[in-house]
């Protein structure tokens, strides 16, 4: 962890001593990174194997993913039982109810669980008839907009209805019948109070949509795995595409080594998106969780680059295999004129002409 953070921060080639001095991290973490191909050893120095741009995007995600892993997010069965109880009692419940419904949970554990829930806002506590009551708070519906006036309430309600897809300011205006200045004021105040937030949509760069503060925006707004802060991560896609290609090539190579005739080799070379997904996950180059569909679309780019073919298997899923092209490198693309960007302006007279063309001269002297 520390090592990665350090590397991410400096983006250069730190030596081993340097790393230890700064981070207190042991061999273990270094080795882990090397194994995941995030680092490579360059004589005495360690260097990230990924390009800088790539570092920025994927690496950040990677770090995020790592730090999240340290927190146990899975709930134990007891926690869930308590949560169920809470949900079934919208009016609230007290310690006696807990004892009744969860008789075999030790009281110390109950306290721990309740404290946790109180802390993260799943439960709230209040006093009634001299005893403590707990109540379940729906995280998706914080409809009590405290300290808000009626306009804010109306706007909030409209935004809330739009869910995690968000709503465009113009639509809010139509629905609320407020004028622009008024609406802007309301939105601003809601935003500062952290009831709502503005999210930039990938569909149009200038278009902002509003949604409730603690909602995770829908992938149609964020663009899914390929977007980071509304920017399409071209390099990330390229690297993934290359890796997919590599995987398919490897698969074919392994199959040819096994032998057994061309048909067998071919059949063994096919891979499903699930196979590739596993490979990519194990590589650890992406800590944004990629779905199988994401991998399918990446594989499709490999197909489009004419490096793979896609067939539909008997069970309806897609199979991918590496393919070769028919033609060797052609004569026309070996010439400068064949790939010349200004060929349209080239003539026997004039400033662009084959007699004095520098492209040709360079090529001749090459």
């Amino acid at each position, binding site marked *: 962890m520390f090592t990665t953070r350090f590397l991410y921060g400096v983006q250069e080639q730190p030596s081993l001593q340097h790393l230890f001095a700064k981070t207190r991290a042991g061999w273990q973490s270094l080795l882990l990174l090397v194994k995941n191909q995030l680092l490579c050893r360059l004589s005495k120095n360690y260097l990230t194997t990924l390009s800088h741009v790539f570092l920025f995007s994927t690496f950040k995600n990677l770090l995020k993913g790592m730090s999240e892993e340290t927190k146990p997010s899975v709930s134990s069965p007891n926690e869930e039982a308590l949560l169920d109880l809470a949900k079934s009692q919208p009016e609230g419940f007290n310690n006696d109810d807990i004892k009744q419904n969860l008789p075999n949970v030790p009281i110390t554990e109950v306290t721990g669980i309740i404290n946790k829930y109180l802390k993260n806002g799943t439960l709230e506590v209040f006093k009634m008839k001299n005893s403590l009551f707990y109540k379940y708070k729906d995280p998706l519906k914080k409809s009590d907009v405290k300290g808000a006036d009626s306009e804010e309430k109306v706007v909030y309600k409209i935004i809330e209805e739009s869910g995690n897809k968000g709503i465009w300011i113009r639509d809010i205006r139509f629905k609320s019948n407020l004028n622009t200045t008024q609406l802007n004021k309301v939105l601003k105040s809601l935003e500062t109070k952290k009831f709502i937030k503005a999210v930039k949509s990938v569909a149009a760069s200038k278009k902002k949509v509003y949604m409730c503060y603690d909602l995770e925006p829908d992938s149609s707004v964020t663009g899914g795995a*390929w977007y980071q802060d509304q*920017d*399409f991560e*071209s390099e990330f*896609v390229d690297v993934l*595409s290359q890796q997919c290609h590599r995987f398919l090539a490897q698969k074919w190579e392994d199959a040819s080594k096994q032998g057994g*005739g*061309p*048909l*067998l080799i*071919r059949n063994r070379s096919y891979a499903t998106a699930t196979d590739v997904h596993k490979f990519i996950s194990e590589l650890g180059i992406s800590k944004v969780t990629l779905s199988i569909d994401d991998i399918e*679309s*990446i594989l*499709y*780019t490999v197909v*489009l*680059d*004419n490096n793979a*073919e896609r*067939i539909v298997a008997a069970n309806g899923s897609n199979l991918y295999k590496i*393919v*070769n*092209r*028919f*033609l*060797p*490198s*052609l*004569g*026309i*693309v*070996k*010439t400068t*004129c*064949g*790939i*010349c*960007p200004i*060929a349209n302006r*080239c003539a*026997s007279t004039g400033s662009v*002409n*084959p*007699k004095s*063309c520098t492209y*040709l001269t360079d090529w*001749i002297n090459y």
Partner: protein
Amino acid sequence: MSTVFGKVVKLILLERFGPVVEQVGSYLFQYGTNPLLYIMKYTELPLSKIKESLCILIKYNLVTFVTNKNENLANYTLKPDRILLMLRYPKYNNLIKKKFGDESEMIIEEVLQRGYWTASELILKVIERLKKNEQATSVSLVKDKFKSLVVAKYLVRMPYPKDDKPVPDLQIQDNELYIFPDIDNKILAQINAGAESMDKIPDKGIYWTINFDRFHQDMRDKIIVTAFTKKIDDNAGKFVELLLRQMYIRTMPWADSSNPVPILEIKDIIRKQETHKQLLAFFDQYVNVIEQDNSNLIRKAGEASGGSFQIFMKEAFIQFAWETIEQIVLEKYDSKAARIFRLVKSKKHIEPDQIQKLAMIPAKEAKRLSYLLLEENFLQIQELKKSNTNNGPNKTFTLFHINLEQVVRMTLEHCYKTLFNIMTRKNHEKEINKRIIVKKQRVDTIAMDMREKGAEEGQISDIEEMITPPEREILERIDITLKKLNTVELEVDETIFLLQIYLMYQ
């Protein structure tokens, strides 16, 4: 016929026949079929020169003629496609050399150089050349070689005039095309030994010329075989080669697709040849793989006698043309542009939004590239209007698509232009170094002359040293440059050939 193409033709004529022939040829290219007097009027050349030029052009079959309404006059037509073939001569020689050996290559070389010739004269000429190279030979050997070239249809008999008219009407019956005349070896041997005069040749008036179609057929097959070799492996290439060979037994060479070929025939040949053990061992697997290849060029036609297969030539060249264009897009722009191009190809019609999504290219970049391809005519655009909505603005859809034939024609133009550029550059390089080249030639002739006269080595080297070391360096450089340009000229011609075959099948 485009202007660039005309320019290329012009350069070829200039290079091989000089300025006068070039002028006559260019005139005919520009104004089409014309009688002699018109040519004279516009080119303003003396009549004798024009006649001479036309003679040369007709001899090489670059110009044809038919009678005018007035039966005493002829109309001349240029065959520009045929002129372009002159660039390909080294390839034809090579092909024959590989297939039939040196003697046959010489025969073809001589015919190419002369346009047409009688068998006897050709045979004698080749024997003479072989003797010079100190190669053992005999009349019957060369004659057999000649015969096999005729049987294989690489050589074809020239049409000849039936009756005596001012403008001869050249004709030939189909069954005469590949009949080799009776030639007595003895007479040839006698002429060869100098005992008889040339007039005694037995096949006077029977002229032979090159059958280019036959060569192109071989070149086409080679493209297909190499393609399969590259895509699958050697064994698959071999399989396709044999399939093509068996195809000729029952199909016209330029048919769109072959008639079904029984698979067992091919297996038998492989068994006899014993060169491709792997192919024999995994024969059924190979058949399966080739048949199921995503190109779908070889398909099963029937189950009878172990299954029979068809090969689809026309489709093969459609796919090759696609790949050619894709390669050009890839090299000219980048891999992203090529991806977009292939995406549009596979979707037939596609909206701009879809391109960005499926090709996984950032929106801006995708837009820039697709409009760049549009501008350079690799992509076309189609607009659809949805007009039945009464309220709101009319919606228009923009769809990208590709018209392959159009793109191929454009690319072919571009190939001609490339040829023109390369040839212009070649001439230019020669031009600027003319002085040195001429000097070198002169020195060479003098040295050769002296050597023949038996001069001493010292004298000869004195003459040779008239070329100074820096000049020598320049000469070497020019040599490399010209070689390079010549090679690439041939390579561009390969692309041209491929695209032409595609267009021919359309």
